[in-house]
């Protein structure tokens, strides 16, 4: 995948498919070129065995194909830059506070790091596909931060109007785009 925003979309899709109601996506860039990506959800979670096998590209729970490349791709990218990926999960079968936290650390000054890409479009794609999920997105850099919480938007909008309707998506695109420009 050619930029980090696509990895963010891909990994957050796992949270959607895990039936999460709350998904928090955080990117934190510090002043030493370390970028930490965290995707936290309250989805169905995984057993310890599943978490271990997650990094194996030939492991997947799906039936349509026999490979699962999402997490292995992310791990490969993080390791290429001198960072790594950790996954902590609590399965719904064992825990009341179930869910998964994926954390990836990248060194952005490494030659093998890739561009951030268009994070606005990835967040929009997630909202369009799951307008009823609460997404919290935060992207902080030494020069400022971007913040978005769809629950806040929903409270202004009321229950009748979907966050996935075009007018609302167009607003969110501008809302995020403006904030991203501020921190560039």
């Amino acid at each position, binding site marked *: 995948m050619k930029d980090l925003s696509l990895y963010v979309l891909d990994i957050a*899709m796992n949270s959607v498919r895990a039936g999460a109601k709350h998904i928090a996506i955080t990117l934190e860039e510090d002043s030493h070129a370390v970028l930490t990506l965290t995707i936290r959800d309250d989805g169905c979670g995984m057993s310890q065995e599943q978490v271990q096998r997650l990094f194996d590209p030939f492991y997947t729970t799906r039936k349509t194909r026999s490979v699962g490349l999402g997490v292995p791709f992310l791990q490969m990218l993080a390791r290429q830059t001198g960072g790594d990926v950790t996954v902590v999960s609590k399965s719904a079968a064992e825990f009341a506070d179930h869910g998964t936290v994926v954390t990836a650390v990248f060194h952005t000054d490494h030659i093998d790091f890739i561009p951030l890409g268009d994070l606005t*479009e990835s967040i929009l*794609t997630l909202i369009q596909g799951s307008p009823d999920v609460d997404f919290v997105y935060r992207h902080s850099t030494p020069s400022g931060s971007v913040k978005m919480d769809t629950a806040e938007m929903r409270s202004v909008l009321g229950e*009748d109007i979907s966050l996935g309707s075009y007018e609302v998506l167009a607003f969110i695109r501008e809302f995020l785009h403006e904030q991203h420009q501020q921190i560039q």
Partner: protein
Amino acid sequence: MKSLSELAAIREQMKDKVAIRTGSGNIRVVVGMATCGISAGARPVLNTFVEEVAAANLTDKVMVTQTGCIGICQYEPVVEVFEDGKEKVTYVKMTPEKAKRVVEEHLKGGKPVSEYLIGNTKL
């Protein structure tokens, strides 16, 4: 700067539309958004469909949705069009430009763009 209060205005504007929209959408455009789709470029394809369907005033009739991997990863980005009483149409190796043509000729004009169909595409 954009503020959330603008959503209140959008809410007022959309009040009347909501009633019309419920129960509508007899055409469903489904974009594959698994790892295979995303890495092949499905995100701009999806977002182009969302924008172009709105621009063509087709939101009452056409619903744009996402799905996972349907098992033909080598043909991604894959877009399926379901319409009441018609056979499913499968577009493969889609791009934002192709998506625009599909909105214009198929969703608006009613005629599938045959050269983008799975049966007419070489790998």
